């Protein structure tokens, strides 16, 4: 097929392409991501930093693959899974994505509730209000007017970089933990490792980056620039995650404290912000949660319509795009209502949904690997290598399995995460 070329490599060309990878990567630093990284650092110190390194590598590989699939085929993830594997497996992939997205939506509303509670606002007021505001902004097509403001709020989490440095961490232990893998052989450690993988490389993120690449009408000539975009986003995510863990390890873990609510997590910002740490954390949490709360319902609605073969978008009136609007509404409603269940622990929701994300991610990754290696779909952009098999699955799971098998139980295991894990297994 003839290819028409974009002219040259320039800063302008890069700026025109940058976006999907950067946003999908940075969106991983949502309330669930920050909370999961905080729990990782608070409960395990620097020891599990290697998980972040592997997750970041996996993020580069799979976000790159998703963007490439979107650019080459001009289709979203679920539509492509249906084309490659038929309606049954496509339906199964859709079900997986819907469950994972509902879980992520819960996590975003939990972030809004936790941030609002730091200001003394009840979740029974903040969550319904947030659900209505996000729905109205997105469905009335005016979300783009506030999204940059929300993104600006969520850059508060960059403060973790300064806070991590100011907390005088043990840099030797941090780099040792990042480069030398070890895993305590207990369910708490395995749960938080799984949650870390699930929050870094999430199903909605894969679906989102592919759709965004399609929406931007990127071309195959843009792929090298898009790779820069993806790597930048993933590395930034990894760096922020690294400093969140380091800040929590140098403050909470050193003092023997655990994270039970958002106020605990905010303590890690005290080396930078002092007494304003809670306010700073709450602002970042709410901004990131508002921004992220719109994406999973929207991603789910597009995926359902892609699978069903129905042309629908937010520009369409309700009468013409009922499945689209109903899906958006149901996902938002379920996400918000779950957080409003009396006495439900918000930190548990934030971590547990990321464990769910990681588990549901595996079949989607296999589907993506299969599509990436299908010459009929990807043409000259086909991935090299044999057909997907269990041995070719992403590295973090196999590293965890291997380390879980060989690692001895470490003596200084903190009991606090066991509580989280017990909530995870029996919500």
């Amino acid at each position: 097929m003839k290819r028409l070329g974009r002219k040259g490599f320039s800063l302008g060309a890069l700026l025109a392409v940058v976006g999907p990878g950067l946003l999908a990567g940075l969106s991983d630093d949502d309330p669930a991501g920050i909370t999961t990284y905080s729990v990782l650092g608070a409960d395990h110190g620097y020891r599990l930093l290697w998980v972040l390194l592997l997750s970041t590598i996996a993020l580069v590989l799979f976000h790159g693959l998703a963007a490439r699939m979107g650019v080459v085929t001009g289709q979203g993830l679920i539509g492509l899974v249906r084309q490659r594997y038929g309606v049954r497996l496509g339906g199964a992939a859709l079900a997986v994505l819907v469950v994972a997205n509902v879980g992520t939506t819960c996590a975003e509303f939990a972030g809004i509730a936790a941030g609002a509670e730091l200001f003394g606002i009840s979740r029974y007021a903040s969550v319904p209000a947030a659900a209505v505001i996000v729905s109205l902004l997105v469905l009335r097509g005016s979300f783009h007017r506030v999204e940059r403001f929300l993104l600006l709020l969520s850059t508060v989490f960059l403060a973790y970089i300064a806070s991590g440095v100011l907390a005088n961490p043990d840099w030797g232990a941090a780099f040792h933990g990042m480069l030398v893998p070890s895993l305590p052989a207990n369910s708490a450690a395995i749960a938080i490792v799984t949650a870390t993988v699930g929050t870094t490389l999430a199903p909605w993120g894969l679906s989102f980056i592919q759709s965004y690449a399609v929406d931007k009408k990127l071309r195959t000539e843009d792929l090298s620039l898009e790779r820069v975009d993806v790597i930048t986003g993933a590395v930034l995510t990894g760096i922020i995650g690294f400093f969140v863990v380091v800040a929590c390890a140098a403050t909470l873990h050193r003092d023997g404290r655990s994270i039970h609510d958002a106020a605990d997590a905010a303590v890690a910002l005290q080396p930078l912000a002092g007494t304003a740490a809670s306010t700073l954390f709450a602002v970042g949490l709410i901004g990131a949660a508002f921004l992220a709360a719109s994406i999973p319902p929207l991603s789910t609605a597009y995926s359902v319509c892609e699978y069903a073969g129905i042309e629908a978008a937010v520009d369409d009136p309700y009468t013409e795009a009922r499945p689209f609007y109903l899906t958006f509404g149901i996902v938002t409603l379920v996400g918000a209502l779950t957080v409003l269940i009396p006495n439900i622990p918000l930190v548990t929701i934030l971590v547990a949904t990321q464990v769910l994300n990681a588990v549901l991610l595996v079949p989607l990754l296999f589907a993506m690997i299969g599509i990436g290696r299908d010459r009929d779909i990807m043409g000259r952009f086909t991935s090299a290598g044999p057909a997907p098999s269990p041995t070719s699955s992403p590295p973090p799971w196999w590293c965890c399995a291997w380390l879980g098998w060989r690692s001895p139980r470490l003596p200084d295991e903190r009991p606090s995460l066991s509580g989280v894990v017990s909530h995870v297994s029996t919500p």
Partner: protein
Amino acid sequence: MLLLSRISGQEVLGPDGRVAGRVADLTVRLDEQAGPHLVERLLVRRHRAPDLLVPWAAIESFENTCVLVRDTDDLTTFAITSTIDALDDDEILLVRDVLDTQIVDLVGQRLARVADVVLTRIADDRLELVGAEVGFGGVVRRLGLRRLAARDGEDCVAWTDLHLTSERGHAVQLATPRSAVHHLDAVALAALVSRLDTESAAEVLAARGSHVAADVVRAADPAVGERMLSAMPDADATKILAAMPPEHATRWRARLAHSPALLGRRFIRSRVWPRRRHTPTRVRGTGDRAT
């Protein structure tokens, strides 16, 4: 009427009456000068043996439950090592290149996904390609929920009224003069290219020549026209602009010179297809579902 989803997977019996394999796909040639599009060959998948590409002339009978190959033929003569290499330039596979792929409905002016491919039996026991069933009803039926599918009704696009977006389907349709894309006027082409990815849209313009392309750019949404012209090599874009009336060409040159890379960029995905200009038409029921 026959549905492709029910044909694929059928057993294929060899001359000795034993199962030789299963129907994996059907091929159709799009470059026939006139007359119906007929199924030309069957792709038969075998267990631990090379695939077969069996010409229709070698089919003894094509029934609902199995396909019989004539006893005069040695099946090994139809064995292939590569499906891509074995196909003619104008030949497409219906399962691979059409089923579950996206199509542009040129009459309804909408993007849709093929739920099933509709065929009909004609004289000499040949199969003719009729069209593509779209919508959720066909999906539900293939999932085995027939009662639910019946409630959704039927929605079928005639083969002559659609453009394929799959890699090979798009390429073959562009290369075959009989395809609908070569007979659309500028307004209809503008609706088509607005639903295609940038490269495919640019290829459609290139296939129709600079004068038609100039009319299409003028008829399309300005954002679509700008996207296509920006994606083309300078020489091609210049030819298209030269084919426009001078005042339009001047306006487009100014627009292209001042198009900022970041204008209108949104962070979240807020739209996927261009706003529809026409209500989709539910056309031509597929009739009986007997197989």
